């Protein structure tokens, strides 16, 4: 047997150095936000900051939740992101079943329209959406924000779910028809349970996109009644313009990010599959 040369070990060491670098590069900024959120203000502004949260304090978290506004912002974000996700899943499942499984002549035309929608930039309909929301009286309402979010969540959902429906075996459908089920019954009782994983993935991706959205939320809301978390965090101010409350900003950031990070790590495999399905089929 040949022994491995020095080059092999040098290569391995370099490779693992690269691995460690990638992990630190990816994780450190978030780690730093978490550490900062637990530090006392003195420790935050020390010339030699510690890499551990010492001295440890929960003051910043108490500050974030002591005002009524941030809790309200969180609820708004939940309503808006949840509402947009729910609507686009229901509409998306119906459309995707038709596009993926039924005889539907203008199938490609519809898919191209959907694809084109995913490509055009949100900002380019900003003025039109503003006019629409004001004409319908939905400006500065949850419903208005949900409606505007369908612009980017719905096309993505339809696109990815169509792929899922196409991937299901034809025999199942045929067996259902032989048993005398209508196409609608087939969808609800046979196909839908099978697309469960696809629904979870696309729902999660739509939720994350809506939860993180900033431009529309900033432009179509006034005050804290409807304002969502990203807008709140971006506009966190101190007592004076010179006093930026970094501890509280980091605490608020951690609060809105931790649930996402946990969700993403739990559903890792599916999210990766969903992301790549959405893109690669384009």
């Amino acid at each position, binding site marked *: 047997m040949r022994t491995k040369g020095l080059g092999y070990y040098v290569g391995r060491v370099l490779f693992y150095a*690269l691995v460690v670098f990638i992990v630190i590069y990816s994780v450190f900024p978030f780690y730093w936000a978490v550490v*900062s959120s637990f530090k006392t203000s003195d420790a935050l502004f020390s010339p030699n900051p510690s890499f551990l949260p010492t001295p440890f304090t929960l003051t910043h978290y108490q500050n974030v939740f002591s005002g009524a506004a941030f809790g309200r912002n969180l609820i708004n974000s939940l309503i808006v992101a949840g509402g947009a996700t729910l609507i686009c899943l229901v509409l998306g499942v119906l459309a995707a079943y038709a596009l993926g499984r039924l*005889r539907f002549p203008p199938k490609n035309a519809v898919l191209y329209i959907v694809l084109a929608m995913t490509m055009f930039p949100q900002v380019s309909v900003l003025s*039109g959406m503003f006019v629409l929301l004001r004409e319908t009286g939905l400006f500065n309402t949850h419903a208005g924000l949900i409606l505007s979010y*369908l612009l980017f969540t719905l096309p993505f959902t339809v696109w990815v779910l169509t792929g899922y429906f196409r991937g299901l075996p034809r025999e199942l459908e045929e067996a259902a028809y032989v048993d005398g089920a209508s196409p609608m019954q087939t969808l609800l009782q046979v196909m839908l349970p099978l697309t469960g994983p696809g629904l979870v993935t696309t729902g999660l991706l739509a939720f994350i996109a809506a939860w993180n959205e*900033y431009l529309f939320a900033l432009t179509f809301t006034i005050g804290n009644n409807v304002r969502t978390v990203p807008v709140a965090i971006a506009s966190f101010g101190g007592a004076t313009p010179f006093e930026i409350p970094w501890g509280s900003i980091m605490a608020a*950031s951690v609060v809105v990010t931790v649930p996402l990070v946990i969700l993403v790590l739990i559903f890792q495999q599916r999210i*990766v599959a969903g*992301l790549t399905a959405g893109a690669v089929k*384009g």
Partner: protein
Amino acid sequence: MLTVRQTRLAWLLVLPTLLVVAFVAGYPLAQVFYYSFHRADISFVEPTEFVGFKNYIFLLQDPDFRGALWNTLRFTFVSVFLETVLGLAIALVIHSNFKGRGIVRAAILIPWAIPTVVSAKMWQWMLNDIYGVINVILVNTGLVANKIAFLANPNTVLWAMVAVDVWKTTPFMALLLLAGLQLIPADIYEAADIDGASRWQQFWTLTLPLLTPALVVALIFRTLDALRVFDVIFVMVGVNTATRSLAIYNRQTLIDFQDLGYGSTVSVAILVIIFLFVFLYMRVAGRGVRGED
């Protein structure tokens, strides 16, 4: 009989989606085109007036628009280039078999999961000119003598934005390229090994050409995303000429200047620019993919 019923049902199922699309995309888009030919303010205090191509002529002579376009193009090219190189490196690392690749894949999902606004705030804190950890590390390791005001200096601020964007979006690039790598059959590498091709040769002659379709798709997605950059820049430095992107300029004309007419013209211009890029990529991709077949 069944097929006729199926087609009718299909129409019924697609209809709600089509209606929503018409409502949230078709109608606003029509409004944007309409107002781009008008003089109008966003609160409709003044009567709206048809002005023909006046807004478009102004656009062509507007130095602020040109500045925003130049910032956006520099931001896009540099960040997409860096993301591609880094993303490819990360994808290759995860693709090779080693203990702990699960940890690496989980780690790179964290930047992707973090909201852009939060990522902007985190980096604003890290890049702080006095208390920021990046300056502390740079000074303590002796890399620089004095702390750098990354976000206040007009020469560094755009590149700081690029760095933040690269951190946040490289994972997406890496995941798309990883999916592409996993589609390449392993046996062609065995054949190349037998033929005595080095790893380096294998990368340039096998991996890269076979990865082209995935690379083009990832490039399209990231380029379109970078061209409409708004959140990172707006949250970190607000509106200033050194970093003002097209999207930021567009919102500024609409909301800050209340100019619905000209703001809509800027929107149309952004649309045209984005579609030019799509068209360009499609042509290049079409050629590349045909070459593959």
